[in-house]
């Protein structure tokens, strides 16, 4: 279930340098045994670096309009100036993809992180409390799970007022995070249920610790493995959801570069004359989600093969 199984090994290793080399050999073993996961990780790394250093990597500004390069005038083909072509406004697609990676990764990470964290806390409380509280929480989760995630996200968008903090669209993040809560709560609850029955939880109770301390310090740290696997897998789902919402016009709004947004509006009129306008943004979404899925899958095989996500 957890990493506990091989923990005793490290306590027997005496030399001070041992943990470091052990860590390195663990990484090497992961690379050897999970080649697909390693590929996923490398793709994510490249995206992350180009997102962080977007101003240095991108050849143009993502909002630089040049109507002479628009496919509407028969221009904008991928060439030496615009490697991946230009969109309806003559904006460089490669640059918009690179800046779009910022939107995708930040919204993806934040929403997966918040959704999974809240879900993990609820799941742990549900398992620890048991009885009526557990029943109530589980029925609530049943209700939430009876909606497709896109519908749940759309409902949140409909309900919440527009809210932008530090240039980040909070609504979109909340809308994407909420569908992850019930799913994570389910998975973490079942992981926590096996821990709740262990003697050290009884010991903590006997020692007089309060429920908050037991949940926070004794149970939560032991469901970290499934939690990390879920966060990784859900970043991919979140990126997909962000793209879908932006495509529908309910997510990120212009002129923020977003992969989903690049596929909507006027850009979708260029099926025949400018296929590059449609092909590359979709490819970027697919590649990102693919990479996170590969990594998530491999992390599961590595830490917790029986986990159902």
């Amino acid at each position: 279930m957890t990493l506990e199984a091989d923990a005793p090994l490290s306590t027997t290793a005496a030399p001070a340098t041992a943990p470091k080399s052990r860590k390195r050999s663990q990484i090497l073993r992961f690379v050897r045994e999970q080649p697909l996961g390693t590929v996923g990780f490398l793709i994510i790394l490249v995206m992350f670096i180009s997102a962080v250093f977007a101003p240095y990597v991108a050849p143009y500004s993502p909002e630089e309009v040049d109507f002479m390069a628009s496919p509407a005038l028969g221009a904008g083909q991928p060439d030496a100036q615009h490697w991946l072509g230009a969109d309806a406004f003559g904006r460089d697609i490669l640059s918009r993809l690179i800046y779009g990676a910022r939107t995708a990764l930040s919204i993806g990470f934040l929403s997966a992180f918040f959704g999974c964290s809240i879900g993990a806390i609820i799941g742990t409380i549900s398992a620890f409390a048991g009885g009526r509280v557990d029943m109530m929480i589980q029925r609530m989760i049943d209700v939430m799970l009876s909606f497709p995630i896109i519908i749940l996200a759309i409902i949140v968008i409909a309900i919440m007022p527009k809210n932008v903090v530090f240039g980040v669209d909070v609504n979109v993040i909340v809308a994407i995070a909420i569908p992850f809560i019930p799913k994570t709560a389910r998975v973490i609850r079942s992981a926590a249920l096996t821990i709740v029955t262990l003697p050290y939880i009884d010991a903590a109770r006997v020692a007089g610790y309060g429920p908050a301390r037991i949940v926070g310090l004794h149970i939560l740290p032991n469901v970290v493995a499934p939690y990390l696997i879920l966060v990784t897998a859900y970043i991919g789902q979140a990126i997909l959801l962000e793209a879908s919402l932006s495509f529908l016009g309910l997510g990120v709004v212009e002129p923020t570069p977003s992969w989903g947004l690049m596929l909507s509006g006027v850009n979708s009129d260029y099926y025949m004359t400018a296929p590059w306008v449609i092909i590359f943004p979709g490819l970027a979404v697919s590649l990102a989600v693919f990479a996170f899925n590969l990594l998530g899958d491999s992390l599961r095989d590595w830490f917790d093969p029986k986990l159902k996500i």
Partner: protein
Amino acid sequence: MLKYALYRLLLVIPTLLAIAVIVFLLLRVIPGDPVAIKLTSESGEVTEEMIQAERERLGLADPLHVQFANYMVGLAQGDLGISLYTERPVLQEIGVRIGLTIELALLATFLSVLIGAPLGTLAALFRGTIFDYIIRVITISGLAIPGFWLGMLIIMFLLATVGHLPPLGTTSFLDDPWLAFNQLIWPALSVAFRYAAVIARMLRSSILEVLSEDYIRTARAKGLKERMVIIKHGMRNALLPTVTVVGLEFAFLIGGLVVTEQVFNINGIGKMFVEAVVFNDLTMLQGLVLLVATSFVLVNLIVDLLYAALDPRIRYQA
């Protein structure tokens, strides 16, 4: 079996009630005033009195508990209220458009089984070989490719090869099966790819789990042919969890076709959802959310009953 069916049926009632209450409360906390937005979009110049009058006409000026009572009484009589935007009964509006969505969902489910089941079986039977790896990459990319983008690629492909798009419209399978099929096959395919991946992965892991069971060893030890072992003893048991996945997939598709319907311009439930949000149509949104949740709960019920019929262990447990 009857006892289990009754027990399962009783469980549905509190769930549906909870959904109805939650939906009501959620949509009442919407910050923007739907009436004000509606009037502004219609006539521009709007006074406070006009808004108040309209609110009273639509029953939105009543205290919350009165609104709730009206809503629940309405629900009991199968009345979902009047759309704030089109002024027509919500149920009627949904009725006009749900057929297309159900047909699309059925076709997509069918296609996904057709694609996913063989892939999952192959991957399990050839575990660890190059087949398994290729299928794994296919299924993971199935989960990664956005359905709407796949739809756009399909449209692009159709334009490049046939030169025109599939006919768009609302022909039902009941009227003209061939035309309806032509209309829906491409959108169905763009959705089915993803669910085929889900089914393939599910089936692969459940086949592998079943094949390591004792009774499979017994069947082999009995001297049964390998084909018989896999088909009669393995597949029958491995298919059970997949039945659930397929059922739930269908249930989810009723509401989950939002993006696909947008790409292929299909006038179904999914497009209604986006319209309801854009036009701030509170009652329509309420009706749609209820519809999606109810259809999920009911399909789930059917799947559970089916499952219990197929696997005696379940009805004895409950």
